């Protein structure tokens, strides 16, 4: 998650003070992710060191120092916005692990395990939906964040449904003869992200 670039984006609107940046960040993201003010100043220091931002040079660190974006900073921001994050390697996902394991542990009903997780996810989505209809109706930043979370959780429930079906079909199929393993595809050699 790139705080430096988000701060650059706020500076692109005009020169700002450190505390102001923190307030605007939190207000713009529906206050879902509180930002530590020390982290803001540390990041601003790095941006200044890298020539992406500059201060009005009162010589003192602190709340009186105003920062502005530099032309190099504007280029870096534009490049960051247009560069897709690297999504090639699947992250280690605890829920995926649980389902894979549940399918193998003797005496465990994998479908019951899936149902328990499905119910938890839907309950969470109910809470997010209430937030969407409450505070988020008048707060664009919060609405975008809530939508992102709802779509993310929804994707997980869809995977659980697909996993449920696959496991049911696999259990119903007669056992297949062992296959000669195919060469490991390149994708798997990239390894999982932590």
């Amino acid at each position: 998650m790139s705080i430096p670039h988000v701060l650059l984006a706020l500076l692109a609107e005009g020169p700002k003070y450190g505390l102001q940046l923190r307030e605007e960040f939190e207000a713009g993201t529906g206050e879902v992710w509180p930002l530590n003010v020390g982290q803001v100043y540390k990041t601003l220091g790095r941006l200044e060191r890298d020539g992406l931002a500059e201060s009005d040079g009162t010589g003192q660190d602190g709340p009186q120092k105003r920062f502005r974006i530099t032309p190099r900073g504007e280029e870096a921001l534009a490049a960051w916005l247009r560069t897709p994050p690297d999504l090639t390697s699947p992250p280690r996902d605890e829920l995926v692990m649980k389902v894979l394991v549940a399918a193998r542990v003797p005496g465990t009903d994998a479908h019951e395990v899936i149902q328990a997780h499905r119910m938890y996810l839907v309950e969470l989505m109910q809470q997010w939906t209430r937030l969407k209809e409450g505070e988020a109706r008048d707060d664009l930043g919060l609405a975008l964040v809530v939508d992102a979370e709802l779509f993310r959780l929804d994707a997980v429930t869809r995977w659980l449904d697909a996993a449920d079906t696959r496991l049911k079909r696999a259990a119903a199929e007669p056992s297949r003869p062992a296959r000669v393993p195919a060469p490991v595809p390149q994708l798997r050699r990239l390894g999982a992200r932590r």
Partner: protein
Amino acid sequence: MSVLQLRGVSKTYGQEPATVHALAGVDLSVQAGEMVAVMGPSGSGKSTLLTIAGSLEEPTSGEVLVCGMALAGMPQGRKARLRRRVIGYVFQDFNLLPGLTAAENAALPLELDGVAVPKARAAGLAALEALGVADRAGRFPDQLSGGERQRVAIARAVVGDRRLLLADEPSGALDSVNADEVMRLLHEACQRGVAAVVVTHDAQLAAWADRVVFLRDGRVSGQTTRPPGPESLLTPGEFR
């Protein structure tokens, strides 16, 4: 009082050895102002549950009560009146009559119930207005967008102060923005006191409900409890 009650409802089709157990011992109770979503895979019995709740089909065993009235043994004429006055249906494919305007479609259940045409049309227009499509009153279904057609279908389902709404994949054919809007409209109807049962495979839509019931192989396999307030989601934490 519950608006809808299912007690030990079972439904089987066919005969041994090819019997299909569509529902097995289902209990469900829905209060006024409550939205209950029913989720489950294909073949879990969701649509059968809805047709039985809506008196369109009879259970093999068990009881169904609508506003405290048992459907078993109810004369067909009374059942038909119940369907016109008390129960509203919303289907995935809208089911609007192509030869009638939006206003005429919305007013249809009341006219069929013998309400005088001017009064029925006024109620239909009021329902369209509540759903934000009064300006489409004079259009025919093929002149409306998918989202508009579904709003007219919901208007028709709530016209005349129905008590119970039964919806089967009500947002099925719509994009996510319109689908959300449909659920918001159903939710608003519940806030006005209507009881609703919404069948859906979509967790984002089910999440609008007060309670989500899961069906599997014709049985209730679980249900979510009424969630706490959304403030519990926003606990203080560091942004890394």
